[in-house]
């Protein structure tokens, strides 16, 4: 890498470096970076007392608890079922496999508002799924459970799509080796395959969790948005905005941005770990 870098600097035959990099930085600054700094500058106009009063208010704390809790459990459910879906898609053949594979991305392709009204209607007491659950005493729509269902829906593709390529690249000879040494199928999965999947699984989990934390569209319809009960952080920010409480909304946004950046950092570290793991495997 170092030698190529030196060579490229001396013999740069391709044009357009300054133009494209200049435009990239200009556009990035204009659309993303400058607007984002506005959040931090706006927050810095608040005194610490005002800031902490907003971000540690009982309503905010309840919203964090629900956001983090529901996102965590949604990502966990997706980790389990996403792994099974990825496994089945890579390892087995069955009727309609290609269709199922393409459908995995539906939660991304389907606009969140559509997902929101659909899930709210399905799980409402008189809905297709809701009317089956009502006799059991389970209420989904307009409860915390509804928030969890919506977050599970939107997080579904993450685990499948991070685990799938790793599983495809997995060298079956390792399994053969383990089998020839007398390992059972379960031992092979647990001791040989699963450790290879761990970084991808954690990456997918972190991505699903991060996405769920910020999610708005699919939750707004299925949550009744009652403060302290079914209000997640993005809904709280939205209700502050609706009341023109920009400073309060911004303070909450800063908290969420910091959490997002930390998660982004975690994902980057996990990716790096994952790559190192795979490279070591190849070597």
């Amino acid at each position: 890498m170092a030698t190529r870098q030196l060579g490229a600097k001396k013999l740069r035959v391709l044009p357009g470096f300054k133009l494209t990099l200049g435009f990239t930085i200009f556009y990035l600054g204009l659309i993303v970076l400058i607007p984002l700094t506005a959040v931090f500058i706006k927050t810095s106009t608040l005194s610490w007392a005002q800031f902490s009063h907003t971000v540690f208010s009982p309503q905010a704390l309840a919203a964090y608890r629900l956001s983090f809790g529901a996102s965590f459990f949604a990502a966990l459910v997706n980790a389990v079922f996403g792994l099974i879906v990825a496994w089945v898609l890579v390892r087995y053949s069955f009727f309609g496999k290609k269709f199922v594979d393409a459908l995995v991305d539906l939660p991304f392709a389907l606009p969140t508002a559509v997902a929101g009204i659909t899930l709210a209607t399905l799980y409402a007491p008189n809905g297709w799924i809701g009317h089956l659950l009502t006799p059991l005493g389970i209420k989904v729509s307009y409860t915390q459970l509804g928030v969890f269902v919506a977050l599970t829906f939107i997080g579904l593709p993450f685990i499948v799509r991070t685990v799938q390529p790793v599983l495809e690249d997995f060298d079956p000879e390792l399994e053969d080796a383990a089998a020839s040494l007398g390992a059972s199928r379960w031992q092979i999965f647990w001791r040989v395959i699963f450790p290879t999947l761990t970084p991808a699984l954690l990456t997918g989990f972190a991505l699903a969790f991060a996405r769920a934390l910020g999610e708005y569209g699919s939750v707004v319809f299925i949550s009744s948005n009652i403060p302290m009960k079914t209000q997640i952080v993005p809904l709280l920010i939205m209700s502050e905005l609706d009341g023109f409480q920009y400073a309060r909304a911004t303070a909450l946004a800063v908290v969420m941005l910091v959490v997002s950046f930390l998660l982004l950092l975690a994902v980057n570290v996990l990716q790096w770990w994952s790559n190192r793991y795979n490279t070591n495997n190849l070597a």
Partner: protein
Amino acid sequence: MTAAEKINAPHRMAEPPFIRRLLIGIALAFMALFLIVPLISVFAEALKLGFGFYFQTLRDPLTVSAIKLTLLAAGISVPLNCIFGVAAAWAIAKFDFRGKNILLTLIDLPFSISPVISGLIYVLIFGAQGWFGPWLQDHNIKIIFAVPGIILATIFVTFPFVARELIPLMQAQGRTEEEAARVLGASGWQTFWRVTIPNIKWGLLYGVILCNARAMGEFGAVSVVSGHIQGQTNTIPLHVQILYESNNTTGAFAVASLLTFLALVTLVLKTWVEHKNTALRGTAFTPVPVGNKAG
């Protein structure tokens, strides 16, 4: 031998058939519950009051204006992000410079930000109480609660899509072909149009498909800056919300069925492009950091 062939090799030790069937059953049940049932229910709810009501809702002037605004927002944001994506990928893939990894992370940033916050940042800048608020009011320019705000928010949320497709693709292709073209006397533009573009056309198309899907479907960010003025600042997803909240559930689902149809078309096109170019993988929608993927 490809990975798939290896797996199907005869000496392969596999799970007993009942475990196999059980796992397939669990996977399909999960997919059915979370994806297929909702998908069918959209169309069932949309047609609850018959085709007459369905088409009447779609022909409604407010629906038509929402469709027009969505097309406008996507029509502006997709080409802009496309130009950005090509420029960024060219700079990052064809040259070496310091801070490349930071740049890659920053390009991905809009993916990790809540849609509500994506809208909020523009309110802070262009809103009535924002940085440019007073100046814009003096000059009678409306950005927030108007069409420009919707376009800006759409550009923000779809910002990384094309770039994150092209960067790994162009990094993998390297720079030797372009360098050869230059050495043989092609101009910079000739090299770009005749060598680079044919090489990246599928990746570009892929990015455009995904970018467009998000642009047309964005809800949270647009909701913050829209002001929800029917017939003026309502996009299709916002129109769905207004119909749903005014208890016109069937109407809401009728309009939602348009977006669902768009989602299905997106998935079909995406699968087709993946089939055409196997280097493109299903991870596209799932924002795994680009920089690290290239190793």
